[in-house]
Each structure stands twice: as C-alpha cells, then as structure tokens.
C-alpha cells in the first residue's frame, strides 16, 4: 500500500465502517444470539467497536500500532467471549503488520489471527463458531495471493466469499463450543452469531479496500472455489462465469 498517511487514513476508515456496520446489524446479531446464546453479541460488538474507533484515532504510530489499539479496545470493552477472541487475536496478529499493509503482511496477519483464535478458544473447525468463517477466509486469502497470484483486492473478495460459505456451513451443525453448546441438538438449524459478525467485518474491510484502491472485485459466494481451471468444460458455473475463467490465468 501507499505512504503511511494514506495507510492510516484507510485503516481508520475501515474501522469506522466496521463500527457503523455492526451498529446497523446490532439487532440482527442479537436475534441470532438469542436463538442459541445469551443474546448479547449485537450489543457487545457494538460497544466494542465503538470504543475501537476512538482508540484507533488516538493511537500513535504505524498500522501495527493502530491495529493493536483496536484489539486492546475490543478486549476491554466487548465483554463476553468475543472480546478475548476478536481482541486478543487482533492484538497478537497486529505484530505481523510491522512494515505496513501489504499482500505479504496481511496473509501473515490472517494466519496469526486464526492461530491465536484457535489457541484461545480451543474450537476446531465445525464446532459452529467464528472459526468456521475465519478458517475458510484465511485459507482462501493465502491461496489466492500465494498460489494464484491474485491482487490483494481480488484475494480479499474471494476470502469474503469463503467466509460467507463458512457462515452458511454453521447453520446445520451442532454447536460444540461456546454458550450454544449447552443447547446440544437444539443448536442445529441456527446460524452462528460470531461467524456472522466475522463476515460483516470482512465485508466492510473489502468495501473500504475497494474505496481506497478505487476498484472493485467480483463477489459470488456460489462460484466454485476449485477448480478455477476447467479443462473439459464440464463445470457449467465456471464456463458461464467469465470472471472465473479470467482469474484462472
């Protein structure tokens, strides 16, 4: 990314966009959480990101410092399990952004974020938690950058799609971690609130990146993630989607 002033401005815009989105989705997240949890996820995330905006604005230093301040604010203000999971993971991963926001450092950030979250929450994939959205997003982002050589914006678009699939994946699962696990089989059929808020955060990061890079990327959660090359033309979705074919280059 560009100079550090622009980087800071884009970061603050991203955090403000996330906070606005979570404020808009407060009722929605609370509804999801009241079905299988303790009905506080909307209020908690809203309070936490409200504080994060202020802390980020007053944070001095580079991107890594601003992001660390966000994590610290979330740990202090979210409450519930999402405080340590979001905030603690952001704080730990912020060290990867030393040297600015680039394709390379954001991949490292994503991996560190996922690792810390799994370490802290001890949730495997498929336990109906935010890990089910974070894991596909981080894996897809890394692969898109490192293997497919996509631009960070295209890679982020694919990561958001992957997170959306992850959110859908939580619906038919029985919760094995978190408050929802106390419900046992009654948790089946409900969408996980933490995975859902993760998707909202990623969508706002993407929207902010599009603004700042003055570009957009295709989003289609139903598009096949693999294969993006379709040698025999037997995959109708890939054949019908010129963007998918173009990205196979």
């Amino acid at each position: 990314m560009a100079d550090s002033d622009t980087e800071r401005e884009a970061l603050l815009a991203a955090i403000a966009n996330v906070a606005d989105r979570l404020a808009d989705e407060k009722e929605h997240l609370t509804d999801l959480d009241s079905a299988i949890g303790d009905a506080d996820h909307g209020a908690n995330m809203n309070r936490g990101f409200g504080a994060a905006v202020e802390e980020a604005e007053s944070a001095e230093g580079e991107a890594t410092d601003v992001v660390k301040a966000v994590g610290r604010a979330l740990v202090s203000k979210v409450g519930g399990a999402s405080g340590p999971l979001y905030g603690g993971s952001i704080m730990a991963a912020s060290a990867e952004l030393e040297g600015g926001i680039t394709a390379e450092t954001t991949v490292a950030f994503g991996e560190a974020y996922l690792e810390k979250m799994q370490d802290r929450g001890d949730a495997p994939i498929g336990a109906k938690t935010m890990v089910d959205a974070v894991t596909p997003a981080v894996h897809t982002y890394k692969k898109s950058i490192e293997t497919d050589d996509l631009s960070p914006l295209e890679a982020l678009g694919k990561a958001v799609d992957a997170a959306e699939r992850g959110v859908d994946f939580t619906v038919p699962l029985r919760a094995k971690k978190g408050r929802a696990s106390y419900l046992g089989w009654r948790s089946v059929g409900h969408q996980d609130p933490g995975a859902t808020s993760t998707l909202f955060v990623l969508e706002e990061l993407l929207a902010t990146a599009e603004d700042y890079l003055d570009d957009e990327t295709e989003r289609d959660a139903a598009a096949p993630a693999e294969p993006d090359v379709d040698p025999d033309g037997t995959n109708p979705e890939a054949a019908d989607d010129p963007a998918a074919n173009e990205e196979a280059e």
Partner: protein
Amino acid sequence: MVGLVVVSHSERAARGIVEVASEMGGNARIEAVGGDPDGGIGTSMNDIREAIEEAVAGPGDSDDTGGGDDGSDGGVVVLVDLGSAVMNTEIAIEEAAVGAEADVGVDVEIADAPVLEGAVSAAVEAAGPKATVESVVNAAVEAREYRKL
C-alpha cells in the same frame, strides 16, 4: 499469602460464592468480580485484572505484597465459571504480567475446577500458613471429586 479471585458472569453470584467460601476460609483474601463492562451479565477483562491486582495487594496490607515473609510464596488463584470468564481471565493475567508488572509480579493461575466447590476448598487451603499457589490450585481441582450423593 495466596489471594483468591472468584469470576462469575453475575457479580451477585461471585459475591455469593465468596460469602460461602469465606465462612470456611476466614483468613483467606478473596475478591469477587463479575458482570460485563456495562454491568450486565458477562465478564470484563479490565475488572478481572483489577480484582487480581487487589488480591495481590490486599486491603490495607501492602507490606504483605508478594508474600514470602509469612512463609508462603504469594500469588493468586482464580476460580472461573463459564467460557468468557476463562478467556478474559487468561488475557487479564497476560495483561497484568505485561502492563502492570509493578502491581502483579507474582504467579497467577486459573484453577480448572467447579467455581463454588473449588472456591470453598481453595479458601480453606489458602487460609493455611504454608499455602502455595500450587497447593491452592490442587485443593480447588480436587473439589471436582467430591461426591454429593
């Protein structure tokens, strides 16, 4: 002296557990903490960190900070209820170690134990003259084995 902290999603539950535990372990230093940052049901990392710092310092006996002079090793054992209490306490311990070393320069451990029964056992052990963080944690963990019927 080893201090204790009881963390619950409900501040009233935490205070009630401390009442029950104090009856058995009268001399033990026990702090109760609970509720989210707005005072609702939940847990708050900052509040937990403050409670740990208070359990180390103790009310009005700063001489005793860190233990040692009374034959014990000081330190704090934390009893927790559900999920976020565990994770917020973990971060509070990390934060206390990093951010406030002058205040908490002692061993702080979470006991993997039922919160009420563990608090009673821990308070009894902590009131003893030779209590250590390890012995208090062990006492709390053993509370799991008590049969009720």
